[in-house]
C-alpha cells in the first residue's frame, strides 16, 4: 500500500527521538452484509476502509496514532507528532526492509466477494424458510451473511516487511417465537475463514436453521430457571465461552504484565482442576479466529495455556512481554488500523477428557445442564464473570428433565476452574466476536461437555427442587 522507501522514511522519522521500535500497520478492508428478513432481502451494504496505524515503543512506553490519509505528507506528520512524546537521541535507523514470506493456512475455493449476491441470497433464503415453516409461532426470521476481506501490510524497525490477505464470512440465522406475552429467540451463527463453499456445501444451513427454530420454541414453554448454588453441566462448543471469560482474558499479557490479572505470576501454579488442559491455537486452518501472522508480524502458534491444571503459558504480545521478560507468541491482535494491538485470544478450547456425556449426566443428582450459552463478560482484575444460558435443562437423579429459561451463571474464574470435576470427549468449537481494548475481533471458543461441581445460578424460578 506504500513503497518500502516511504516506509523506511516514516519509520526513521518516528525513531528520531530515541524510540527502540517503530511499526507501520496498513490495512485495506472491504466488508459486505446482506440480510433477509421474513423471506425478503431487507438490507445490503458495503463498507470500505483504508488506513495506517503507527506505533513507537521506548522501554515500557508506547505511542500510537492512526490516519485514513495515506499520503506521504500525512504519514510523515503522524510519525513526527508521535515522536514528540519522547525526548532523546536516535538509537536506531532502518536501512532496508526484507519481505518475509507469509504461509497461508486458510485457503478458500470461491471468494465470497467474487460470488454473485443472488447466490448468497439463495442460501440465506433456504435457511430463512426452514425457520419460518418450523412452527406457526415463529413470527420473525432473520438470516444474514457478513463477509470481510482484508489486505494487511506491516513494516517494522526490525527490518521486516509482511503482507497478508485474509477473507472470512459468517452467517446469522435467528428467529423469534411469540405466544401470548412470551417472546423467545433462537440463534445460530456459523462462520469460518473460508469462501462461499462453506455456506453452500460444507455446512448444513437448513439443519442449523431448524436448530435455531427448535431452541426458540423450546424456550417458549420453558419454566423460569430456579436460582441458587448447584452443579452445572456445560455443553460443548459455545459452552467454551466460560473458559474464554473466566480464564482466557485473565491470561492475556495486557492484564498479566501489569499485575492486573488474578493469574499474574502464576506460571507453574495449579490454577485449574488436574483434569483440565487448555490451548489457544491461532494456526488451525480455516478456523474463524485463526491468522497466518499476528497483527505485529509474529507467526501464530499453538500455545498450551494449562496442562493438567497447571498454568504453563500466557498469551503474549512483544510490548507487554517486555514487562514480563518474555517474547510475543503470536497472540497480538487488533480490530483494525484504528486500534493499538495487544495480546488477545484466537481459537481457545479445553481439551478432551475421558468421560462421556452420558456418564456426566448420570453422575448428577440435581443440577443444571446448560446446553448452550448466550454470551458473557469478565473483569480480569477480580476474575468475576457472568454469562447467560440460551438453552438449559434441570437434571434430576441422572436424567435430563424440564427445560428452563432466563438462567445467568456467575462466579470467579479462579474458583470455577478448580471445580471442573468431569470432562467428556466431545470437543467442539463455536464462533464468536470478542471485545476488549484492541477492539472487536473474531474468535473461536470450545470445549467438550464438562461439569462444574458447584456454581451460582441466577433466575426467577425460586429454589431448585
Amino acid at each position, binding site marked *: 500500500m506504500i513503497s518500502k522507501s516511504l516506509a523506511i522514511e516514516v519509520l526513521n522519522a518516528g525513531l528520531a527521538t530515541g524510540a527502540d521500535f517503530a511499526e507501520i500497520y496498513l490495512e485495506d478492508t472491504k466488508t459486505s452484509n446482506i440480510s433477509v428478513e421474513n423471506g425478503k432481502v431487507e*438490507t445490503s*451494504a458495503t463498507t470500505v476502509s483504508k488506513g495506517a496505524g503507527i506505533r513507537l515503543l521506548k522501554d515500557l512506553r508506547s505511542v500510537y496514532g492512526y490516519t485514513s490519509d495515506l499520503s506521504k505528507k500525512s504519514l510523515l506528520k503522524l510519525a513526527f507528532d508521535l515522536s514528540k512524546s519522547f525526548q532523546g537521541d536516535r538509537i536506531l535507523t532502518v536501512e532496508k526492509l526484507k519481505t518475509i514470506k507469509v504461509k497461508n493456512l486458510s485457503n478458500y475455493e470461491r471468494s465470497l466477494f467474487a460470488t454473485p449476491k443472488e447466490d448468497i441470497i439463495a442460501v440465506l433464503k433456504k435457511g430463512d424458510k426452514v425457520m419460518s415453516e418450523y412452527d406457526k409461532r415463529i413470527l420473525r426470521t432473520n438470516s444474514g451473511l457478513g463477509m470481510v476481506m482484508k489486505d494487511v501490510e506491516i513494516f517494522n524497525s526490525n527490518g521486516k516487511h509482511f503482507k497478508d490477505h485474509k477473507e472470512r464470512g459468517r452467517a446469522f440465522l435467528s428467529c423469534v417465537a411469540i405466544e401470548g406475552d412470551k417472546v423467545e429467540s433462537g440463534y445460530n451463527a456459523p462462520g469460518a475463514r473460508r469462501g462461499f463453499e462453506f455456506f453452500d456445501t460444507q455446512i448444513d444451513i437448513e439443519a442449523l436453521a431448524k436448530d435455531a427454530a427448535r431452541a426458540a420454541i423450546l424456550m417458549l414453554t420453558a419454566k423460569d430457571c430456579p436460582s441458587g448454588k448447584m452443579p452445572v453441566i456445560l455443553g460443548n462448543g459455545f459452552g467454551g465461552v466460560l473458559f474464554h471469560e473466566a480464564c482466557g482474558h485473565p491470561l492475556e499479557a495486557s492484564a498479566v504484565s501489569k499485575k492486573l490479572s488474578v493469574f499474574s505470576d502464576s506460571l507453574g501454579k495449579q490454577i485449574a482442576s488436574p483434569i483440565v488442559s487448555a490451548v489457544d491455537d491461532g494456526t488451525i486452518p480455516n478456523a474463524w479466529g485463526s491468522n497466518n501472522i499476528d497483527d505485529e508480524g509474529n507467526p501464530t502458534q499453538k500455545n498450551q495455556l494449562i496442562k493438567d491444571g497447571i498454568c504453563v503459558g500466557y498469551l503474549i504480545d512483544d510490548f507487554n512481554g517486555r514487562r514480563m521478560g518474555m517474547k510475543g507468541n503470536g497472540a497480538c491482535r487488533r480490530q483494525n488500523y484504528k486500534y493499538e494491538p495487544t495480546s488477545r485470544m484466537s481459537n481457545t478450547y479445553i481439551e478432551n477428557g475421558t468421560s462421556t456425556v452420558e456418564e456426566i449426566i448420570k453422575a448428577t443428582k440435581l443440577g443444571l445442564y446448560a446446553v448452550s450459552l448466550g454470551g458473557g463478560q469478565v473483569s480480569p*482484575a477480580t476474575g468475576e464473570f457472568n454469562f447467560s444460558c440460551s438453552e438449559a435443562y434441570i437434571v434430576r437423579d441422572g436424567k435430563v428433565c424440564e427445560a428452563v429459561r432466563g438462567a445467568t451463571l456467575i462466579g470467579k474464574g479462579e474458583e470455577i476452574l478448580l471445580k471442573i470435576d468431569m470432562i467428556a470427549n466431545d470437543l467442539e468449537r463455536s464462533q464468536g466476536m470478542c471485545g476488549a481494548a484492541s477492539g472487536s475481533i473474531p474468535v473461536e471458543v470450545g470445549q467438550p461437555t464438562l461439569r462444574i461441581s458447584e456454581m451460582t445460578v*441466577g433466575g426467577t424460578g425460586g429454589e431448585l427442587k
Partner: protein
Amino acid sequence: MNYNKLFSLAKEKGISALSVTKSYSAEKSISLFHGEISNYSINSSTNYAIRGIYNNKFGAIGTESDDVNFIVDEIIKNAKVIEKDEVAEIFKGSKSYKKRNYYSNELENWDLNEPIKKLFELEKVLKQKDPRVIEVEVEFSLTSSENEIRNSYGLKLKEKSNYYTCFASVVVKDKEEIKDGFGYVISNDPKEFDINKIADDAIIDATSKLGGTTINSKKYNAVLDYKAVASLLNVFIGWASADSVQKNSSRFIGKLNTQVASKKLTISDMPLLKNIFARGFDDEGVATYNKKIIDKGVLKTFLHNLETAKKDGVQPTGNGFGSLNIGIDTTNLSIKPGKYSLDELLAKAGNGVYIKSVTGLHAGMNGRSGNFSLQAVGFVIENGIVSSPLKMMTVAGNVYDVFNSVAAVGKTQTLTLGGTISVPLLIKKLSVTSE
C-alpha cells in the same frame, strides 16, 4: 469529497436521490502506569456513510475514500438486491432547525499540559488515598468530532462537538479479597475536571465492595441507583421505537395514550439539552425536538424515523439514527427527578437491597420480552441504611414490571457515559440470587 461530481454521476447512472453523511473525528489520549506515560495516541479519521435510492430501493456504502465511481456502482449493486416492500425516501429538509452551540472553544484552546499534569496528580492521589489500593490505571482523552449531511436535494447540515474524558480504575485488596472500582468525568468544561472527586468515586466504588456478605435468595424491596436504572430504562424505552412496534418486537403495541409505567415516571427524549450529546438533527437530517415519551406513566408518542413515520402516516420525530442502516434511538433520555435523596429512598426501602449497577446486558437481557437475569453490584439495606456489600449476586425479573412497580423517584440526576440522564428509583420486589 467532490459532492457535485458525486451527485451528478449518481443522477446520470439512475440514482434518484443520494445522501452523504461525513463523520470526522480526532482524538488525543494518554494513559499512565506507575508514574509514567504508558500510552499516548493521536488519531483522526474521516468516514462517509452514503445512501442512494435506485429503483425505489436503498443501496448503501460506508467508505473512507472518495472514489465516486466505486461509490455509485456499489450503491446500485446493493439497491438491486433489496426486496422489502417499503418505498425508500431521502429527506428534503425540515422547515427549521434549532441552533444550539455545544462546541466548546475553551476546550479547543485548552493547553494539554494542564490536564496531563492533573492526570499525574490523580494517579498519585489514588495511590496514597487508601492503603488497600494495590493498582491504579488512569487515562485522559480529548475528542472533537464533526458531522455533516449533504444530499442531492441541496440539504446541507453541519454540527461539531468536543469533549474530554478521564477514567480512573483502582484495584483494592483487603486480606485475600480483591475488588475493582471506577471513577470518571466526561465533559466539555475544563473546570469540571476535579481529580479529587474522580479519585473518591473510584476508591469508594472499589472499597465499598469489600467484606461482602450473602442473603437469602428471594424477592426484596430494591433501590436501584442511577446506573442500574439507565441500563434497564434503555430496554424499556426501546419498546417505544416505532420500528420495534411495526416488527412486533415491542410490549407497547397498541398502547399509545395508555398507562405503560408507574404514574410517578415521566421520561423524555431531550436532544436539544445543552450538553455534549446534544443533536440538532438526526442522521436522516430531520430536525430534532425535545419530547415527553412517557408522561406520568402514559405513553405519549412512539419514536420514528422517516420509514416508520411513513408507514404510520405520521411526521418523523427526529429519532432516526444509524449510519448505513437507519434505526431508532434517543438522545439525552431523561427521567424527571422526584422528591427523594438517595438516603431517603434507602430509608423508605427499610429492609432490602441497594443495586448500584448491573452487567452482562448483551447476554442476560431479552430485549423483546424484557426478561433479565444479570450480574449486579449490590448492598444490603437494613433498617433504612446500607449495612454491608453483597458478594457476587444476580438480579432477575422483567423490565416492564420494574417500571410499573416504582414506589418512589430520586431527585439527583446524573448523566451516564451512554447519554442517559438518570435518577435512582425505589421499586418493590426484585428477585435476588446471592452466593
